[in-house]
């Protein structure tokens, strides 16, 4: 008997045995999470600075802040990147910890619904203050 063949590729024995390969769409999720993370680096710094500048602000001052087009646009960018990043992240967390398939799908759908609702609520509020 010859010795066992050595495997030089980065793949677990389990992965080899199952032979399923990639799920084909995982890369998009991974990439989108990185892209939104990079976008959120400057946007969250901007967010922190604006929150400081709006400390103790009256509603009129908040409205005046969003009436500046750059602020409204940057906040809309923040909302888009933030909620997309959140949607991707929550999905991973639920996939990791919820082991019953039906509960997993249901909870991901529910959270996605809440996230879309909140993202739209934020966007409409920003536009209402801006216009």
């Amino acid at each position: 008997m010859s010795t066992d063949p050595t495997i030089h590729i980065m793949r677990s024995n389990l992965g080899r045995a199952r032979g399923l390969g990639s799920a084909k769409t995982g890369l998009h999720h991974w990439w989108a999470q990185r892209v939104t993370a990079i976008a959120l680096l400057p946007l969250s710094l901007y967010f922190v600075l604006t929150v400081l500048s709006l400390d103790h602000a009256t509603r009129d001052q908040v409205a005046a802040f969003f009436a500046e087009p750059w602020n409204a646009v940057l906040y809309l960018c923040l909302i888009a990147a933030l909620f997309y990043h959140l949607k991707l992240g929550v999905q991973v967390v639920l996939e990791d910890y919820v082991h019953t398939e039906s509960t997993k799908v249901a909870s991901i759908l529910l959270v996605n619904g809440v996230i879309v609702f909140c993202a739209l609520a934020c966007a409409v509020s920003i536009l209402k203050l801006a216009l």
Partner: protein
Amino acid sequence: MKDVREALMVGRNTEGRLVRRPVSPFMLGSAYKFQTSSLTSIMHRITSCALGVGTLLLTYWLVSAASGDGAYSIAEAILGSWFGILVLFGFTVALFYHFCNGIRHLAWDAGKGFELPDMHRSGGLVVAATAILTLAFWALAFFIW
């Protein structure tokens, strides 16, 4: 074994003993030693969940500002109360931690900083930066503006 897929849950531990493969979150159980890497990793996830809840606050703040003076003054009273400040403080800790550790993750994605000493150093740096940024933020919020 009820299902043929259950066969995939059989594995061997480092001592070669047959074990049932742990399912996530296994890093909190006896199967995994607690260390800097696991602590900073689980903190990244915990802060992400905290920030997820925090986005509800952001939504509430924006909607109340768009709704009118009455709604905004209620939001101001809630967020400005001691409990509101406490929640906002936790929110800033989570935000700065996730921000700093996120940069660490992006560096790893670029293939940098994987050596164990580098990883431990960057982990400590993240914790220190979180503390400094959080304190700086609240110092500015209370004393400057």
